[in-house]
C-alpha cells in the first residue's frame, strides 16, 4: 500500500510554504510528516543535515533508526528518520535552568546560543535523544590539512541577536552548547524547505504548516494512518509518521 500524492510534492510544499510565510509567525505551526513506507534508509537526509548545518563530530541532528523485523525469508527493514520532534509540550524547555531553550510561536523549539551554559540537563530530559552537545571537536582539524568550511560561521540562528554570527572558535558558542534540529529555520526565513526534505531520495519527507488545513502535511495525516513516537508521554511531537 502506498500513500499517493497528487501533483509534485515539492511544488505543493513550496506553495504551502509561501502561504505560511505570508501569515504572522504565531499563526504558523511547522511540522513534518515522514512516510515510513517510502524510507529506504539511505541516510541522505542525515548527510544533508550535517552538510547544511556544519555539525561537528558527535552531533547529528537527524539520524535514521534501522531495525530488522522478522526472520529470513519473512524479513524487512524498518527505517525511521528521527529529527527533533519540536514537541508542543517539550520536556527540554521545562528543564533548562537558564531559559536557553524555548518553543517559538511557530512551533520550532529553538536554542539561544548566548544563554546555554552546556549543563546538558535538556539532553537527559529529551525522550527522543534529539539534543546534542558540541564538544568542540572537528573532522579535519588534526589531520594536517584542516578544511576551511569547518571554521566558517554556521547559518544557524544567524542574526540572533541582531548582527550575531557564530564562527567556530575554540571555546565560544556553539562549542560548549547543546544543539539540535531546528527545522532549518535559517532556510525557512528564506522561503526554502529544510535540507532533509529536498534531499530525500524517496520523497518520503514532507514539511509544512499544520495550522493550514489545505497544506500537504495536514492532508497526509488526515488521509492516512499515522503515528508519533512515544505519544503516550504527552510530549505532542510535531513529527508524524505514516505507517
Amino acid at each position, binding site marked *: 500500500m502506498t500513500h499517493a500524492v497528487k501533483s509534485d510534492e515539492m511544488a505543493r510544499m513550496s506553495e504551502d510554504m509561501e502561504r505560511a510565510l505570508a501569515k504572522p509567525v504565531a499563526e504558523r505551526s511547522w511540522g513534518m510528516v515522514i512516510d515510513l513506507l517510502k524510507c529506504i534508509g539511505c541516510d541522505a537526509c542525515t548527510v544533508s543535515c550535517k552538510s547544511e548545518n556544519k555539525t561537528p563530530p558527535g552531533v547529528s541532528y537527524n539520524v535514521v533508526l534501522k531495525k530488522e523485523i522478522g526472520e529470513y525469508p519473512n524479513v524487512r527493514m524498518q527505517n525511521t528518520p528521527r529529527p527533533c520532534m519540536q514537541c508542543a509540550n517539550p520536556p527540554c524547555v521545562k528543564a533548562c535552568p537558564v531559559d536557553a531553550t524555548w518553543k517559538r510561536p511557530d512551533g520550532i523549539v529553538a536554542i539561544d546560543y548566548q544563554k546555554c551554559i552546556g549543563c546538558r540537563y535538556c539532553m537527559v530530559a529529551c525522550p527522543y*535523544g534529539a539534543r546534542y552537545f558540541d564538544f568542540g571537536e572537528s573532522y579535519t582539524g588534526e589531520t594536517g590539512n584542516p578544511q576551511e568550511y569547518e571554521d566558517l560561521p554556521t547559518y544557524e540562528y544567524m542574526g540572533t541577536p541582531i548582527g550575531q554570527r557564530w564562527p567556530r572558535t575554540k571555546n565560544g558558542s556553539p562549542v560548549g552548547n547543546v544543539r539540535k534540529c531546528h527545522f532549518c529555520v535559517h532556510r525557512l526565513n528564506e522561503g526554502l524547505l529544510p535540507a532533509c526534505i529536498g534531499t530525500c531520495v524517496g520523497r518520503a519527507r514532507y514539511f509544512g504548516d499544520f495550522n493550514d488545513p489545505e497544506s500537504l502535511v495536514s492532508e497526509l495525516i488526515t488521509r492516512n494512518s499515522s503515528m508519533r513516537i512515544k505519544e503516550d508521554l504527552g510530549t505532542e511531537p510535531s513529527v508524524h509518521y505514516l505507517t
Partner: protein
Amino acid sequence: MNSNKTLWPGYWIVLLGLATVGVIYIVRGLVNGMSETALTNTVPWGLNIALYIFFVGLSAGAFLLSTLVYVFRIERYEPAGRLALWIALITLVAGGAAILLDVGHPERAMWRLFINWNFSSPLALVAHVYVLYMLIIVAELWVVMRADITRLADANGGWRARTYRVLGLGTSLPTPRSDRRDARILLVLGAVGVPVAPIVHAGVGSIFAVLKAQPLWFSGLYPVMFLVSALASGGALLTLAYALLGPRDEHYRPLVIDLAKLTGFLLALDLVLYGSEYLVGIYGDIPSHIAVYTVIATGSYWWVFWFVQLLGGGVVPLILIFSNRSGRSVLWLSAASALIVIGILAVRLNIVIPGLTVPQLDNLASAYVEPRMSADYFPNAAEWFSNIGVASLSLIVFSLGYLGLPLVRGRPAQGVV
C-alpha cells in the same frame, strides 16, 4: 593517635602531590573544554555529576546531623557539632566545584543561573537554595566558633593572633550574655537550615526524578531516596571523622557508637527504599526499565553494584554496626563508616550512568556510529584526576581548618576551648 600532634608529613606530601596533578587536569579541562572528558551524546552525564550528588549528599547529611545539636539541642551529639558543620561546608564547596567543572560554559553558569530564571527547572531551584544553604552553614560556623576564636586571638601572638582577629571579625571576648545571644542566633540559623538542607538534597533528587524520559529516575521515591542516602553518607563520614579526629575524652567512644548506630538506622532505611524501588521496577517488567536494571546488575560494572554498593556498602556495615563485638569497637565502626561512604559513592554512580547507557530509542546507538555518540562510557584519566584534584584540595582546606580552627574540644593546643 595523639590528636594534639600536627598531621604527619607523609599525609601532606601525598595530598599536595595529588592536588598538583589534579590542578593541572582542572586547568586543562577549563582551557580545552568538555572534549577532555570521555562523555558522549548518549551518556552526557558521568563521573562529575555522580560526584556532585555524592558531595552535596554528604553535606546535607552532615548538616542535618549538626541540627541535632544546634536546633534540637540533643546534648549527646554536641562534641561533634562543629566538625559536622565544617564537613558540611567543605563537601558542599567540593560538590559545587565538581559541577562547575562539568558544564560547557562555567563562566556563564556562574551568573546566568541567578539571572535567567526558569521556574519550572529543578536545576534552577537547586542552584538558588544551594547558595542560601552555603550562606547558612558559613554563618552557623562563624557564630559557633566566634567565642573560641576571640579567645584564641587573645591567647596567641604574631600572625596567629592577627589571623584569628580577622576571622573573628574584630568582635570581643565572649560574655555570658553574648553566649546566650550566640546560642539563639545558632538556633535560628539552624532552624532555617532544617527545611533548607532537605530542599537542597531532595531538590537534587528531583532533578532526576521529574524526567519522564528516564525510567530509572522517574519516580516519586527518588527525592526521598536521595535525602536518606545523604543522611546515611553524611552520618558515616561524620562518624569516621570524629573517630579519627575527635578528642579521646570520656565522650569519645559513646559518641562514635551513637553516631554509628544512627548512621546504621539511616542506612537500613536507605536499603529498604532502594529495595522497594528496584524490586517494584523489576516486577513491572517494562522493557525500558528492565534494560537499565540489567545494566546495573549484570553489565560490565556488575561488581560495583553487588560488591561495593550492596555487600560492602550495605550488608557488611550493618552487621559491623549492630553486632555486639564490632558494634562497640571504634576501629570496626570506623571501617564500617568508610565502607558506607564508599558504598554510597557507588550508589550515586549507579544512579547517573547506567540509565543513560540505554539509548532513548531502539537502534539509536547503531543509527549513527561515532565515538562521541557511543553508549559506552567510563571516565577517562582527565576526569579521574581533575576530581582527585577537587577532593585533595578540599581535604587540604579541611585539614587546615582542623589544625587551626576550634572545631573539636582540645584543639588547637594553644587556646581555651
